[in-house]
């Protein structure tokens, strides 16, 4: 039986590289097409980097999931950082509080099927994404 869930730390640049490789492997195991693999890996890269840079490090929790007719991959990016004070602003194409392009959150949302953010000022940020096969 293959492993269906687990977690990976997001504490360094190298962890982001490892997280990307893990997501690539999981999507391959699930039989995603090359384009779908690439979309999920790219979304994961954006969210992992956010957790590292803005959230001061965090964890990626993954789960192979299924509903009645399809299988998919669910990823949770959790950090204990400062949270996002204005989520509408953060979810605007091109807006960044740092030195980015401001396309990470909105872009990741476009690349997956389900996207959810739970954030609280002073209470960290949790972003959940799902992509179905």
């Amino acid at each position, binding site marked *: 039986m293959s492993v269906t869930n687990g977690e990976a730390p997001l504490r360094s640049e190298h962890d982001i590289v490892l997280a990307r490789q893990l997501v*690539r492997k999981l999507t391959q195991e699930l039989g995603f097409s090359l384009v779908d693999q690439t979309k999920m890996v790219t979304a994961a*890269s*954006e969210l992992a980097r956010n957790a590292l840079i803005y959230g001061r490090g965090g964890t990626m929790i993954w789960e192979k999931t299924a509903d009645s007719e399809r299988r998919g991959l669910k990823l949770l990016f959790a950090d204990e950082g400062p949270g996002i004070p204005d989520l509408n602003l953060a979810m605007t194409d091109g807006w960044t509080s740092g030195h980015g392009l401001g396309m990470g959150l909105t872009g990741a949302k476009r690349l997956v099927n389900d996207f959810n953010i739970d954030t609280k000022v002073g209470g960290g940020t949790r972003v959940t994404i799902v992509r179905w096969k």
Partner: protein
Amino acid sequence: MGEFLLVTIQVDMHDQLALRLQDDLSTAIQKNASKGVLVDISTLEMVDSFIGRMVSDISGISKILGADTVLVGMQPAVAITLVELGLSLPGVATALNVERGMALLRQKIDADGADVGH
């Protein structure tokens, strides 16, 4: 390669490496008075907004130093994903491979030369 510089972006480049690359490239453009830069991303299996910014920074720096940039070798799955991510990489020309990238650079340089002559 002669007047052109070839930069290969490796699979998993960190922030620090990206900054080093920009430094080294600026130095090389000046030292060789290069008129064109080819950025080869054929080994990249994904391009996120971090790499996207790096590519447009390279293109911007090169422009200031008098060199045109062409991005070469983007894999189709990466191109499709990049569009959906929302990155348009303004001002960055692309070509299928290094050979075509060089042809494109020559055209650009000839066109620039023609402008100066008038």
